[in-house]
């Protein structure tokens, strides 16, 4: 069976790859959007924190025999705790300064984290096995679906929409939204904004680490896996609109699919299509598709 002259199996598999990439874009850009919204920090260390999530899972498995399912919980907690430490000791000093200072500090931290892991583990990737429960695949008739890849999409959607629900529908989310608009007034109303900021950064970092654990079985776990991805993720955030939660999720998934389709119909353009869209969006709607001017 062919669709627009393309075999359905090829189209389906590329759309699946796009959806998987989009899932990673969505989780990572969601974390960036939350952090930027409340902290006003462009967290350039996000890619390194994603890499650290994957490495923590790999170290947990190879050194301590901790399985994938436990790592999925433990790695975000460990890396998120490191994020909390960074916020308390370094980022806190920069909130009143220009965005550029936060960007430079987190960029420096990203280089340090990557350097440490390169020094310890080299740049050749480490493999992480697909968990037994998610091995194999399902024949959908028009394409073959590896179960683990389907799991990535489901887990990413669950985490993204769970986070969206937490922010939009709960009291904690109301504190976050209000704190993003006017942190001084939120403090005057009796809410501990410094603690809220620490929690937010830790949660954003934990999201990156969660994505890292999800990625470990499909990509090689290596110190540069985050830096390869983070530039695209920043483009996703710019397209969605800085600080927009639903914008980050929908744009991440949508751009992943567009990238997948481009790979089918014009493979040469697949590596740059996201950036072309970014340029167009910046020219037409500088605040992003979902951002407020």
């Amino acid at each position, binding site marked *: 069976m062919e669709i627009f002259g393309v075999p359905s199996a090829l189209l389906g598999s590329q759309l699946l790859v796009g959806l998987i990439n989009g899932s990673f874009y969505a989780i990572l850009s969601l974390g960036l959007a939350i952090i930027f919204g409340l902290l006003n920090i462009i967290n350039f260390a996000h890619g390194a924190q994603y890499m650290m999530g994957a490495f923590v899972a790999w170290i947990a498995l190879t050194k301590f025999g901790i399985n994938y399912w436990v790592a999925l919980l433990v790695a975000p907690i460990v890396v998120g705790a490191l994020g909390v430490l960074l916020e308390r000791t370094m980022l806190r000093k920069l909130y009143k300064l220009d965005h550029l200072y936060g960007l430079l500090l987190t960029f420096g931290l990203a280089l340090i984290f990557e350097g440490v892991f390169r020094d310890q583990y080299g740049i050749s990737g480490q493999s992480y096995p697909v968990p037994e429960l998610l091995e194999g695949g399902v024949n959908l008739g028009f394409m073959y679906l590896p179960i683990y890849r389907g799991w990535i999409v489901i887990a990413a959607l669950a985490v993204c929409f769970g986070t969206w629900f937490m922010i939009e529908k709960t*009291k904690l989310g109301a*504190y976050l939204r209000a704190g*993003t608009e006017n942190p*001084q007034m939120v*403090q*005057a*109303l*009796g*809410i501990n904004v410094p603690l809220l900021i620490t929690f937010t950064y830790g949660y954003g970092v934990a999201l990156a680490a969660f994505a890292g654990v999800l990625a470990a079985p499909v990509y090689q776990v290596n110190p540069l896996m985050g830096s390869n991805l983070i530039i695209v993720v920043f483009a996703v955030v710019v397209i969605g609109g800085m600080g927009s939660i639903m914008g980050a999720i929908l744009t991440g998934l949508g751009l992943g699919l567009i990238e997948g389709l481009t790979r089918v119909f014009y493979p040469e353009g697949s590596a740059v299509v996201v950036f072309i869209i970014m340029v167009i969006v910046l020219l037409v709607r500088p605040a992003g598709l979902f951002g407020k001017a």
Partner: protein
Amino acid sequence: MTSAFQPHPEMLRILDLHSFYGESHILHGIDLKVARGECITLLGRNGSGRSTTLKSILGLVGRRSGSIMVNGKEVIDEPTHRMARYGIGYVPEERAIFASLSTEENLMLPPQVATGGMSLDEIYGMFPNLLERRNSPGTKLSGGEQQMLAMARVLRTGAKLLLLDEITEGLAPVIVKKLGEVITELKKRDFTIVMVEQNFRFAAPLADRHYVLEHGEIIATIPAAELPQKMDWLHQTLGV
């Protein structure tokens, strides 16, 4: 809920309060006291330090020194987010209604800091418009409704010391009249109120005492009973 609400005859006492924004020295030794259940106003021209006095009480300025006693407790070293727990409710000049929250979310946002706060029913009874607009985004409300929401937001928390900054600014006379009725009702309920107000006709019949500020200092304290004799001087000083 908190020992801050053990009755103390003096709800607020400020001694030698100095405040700074960066290098700028804004308040130069403010002294004032407000007894429980009293309503006072801070009067003065723009830039005289009235709003900064309220912000200084909450710690919303760069740096402050001196003494701020709330209900008998020294709070000058407390961080801003802990001030509400001493029973302080703040209504800022710009109202600070959160655009991303509905009217009811705005209303329910501050944590309850003490028992005795108004229930939602009481609040909707006092401000019926808010009930009708409870699902609307906060910033879609009219100016008057936003002001009522900003007031209602702190009344729900159990705060007993209200810091009200220019609550009548830019509002229609009918809304100003309604706010006057609300303040009168709050006084009956033993709330302690510190108002910064440009609208002297609004503030005069409500306040027990007036503090006049100039260049970050209190230059006169006028009890309500002495107001008629001081009107000419006040008009001259305030330029109203």
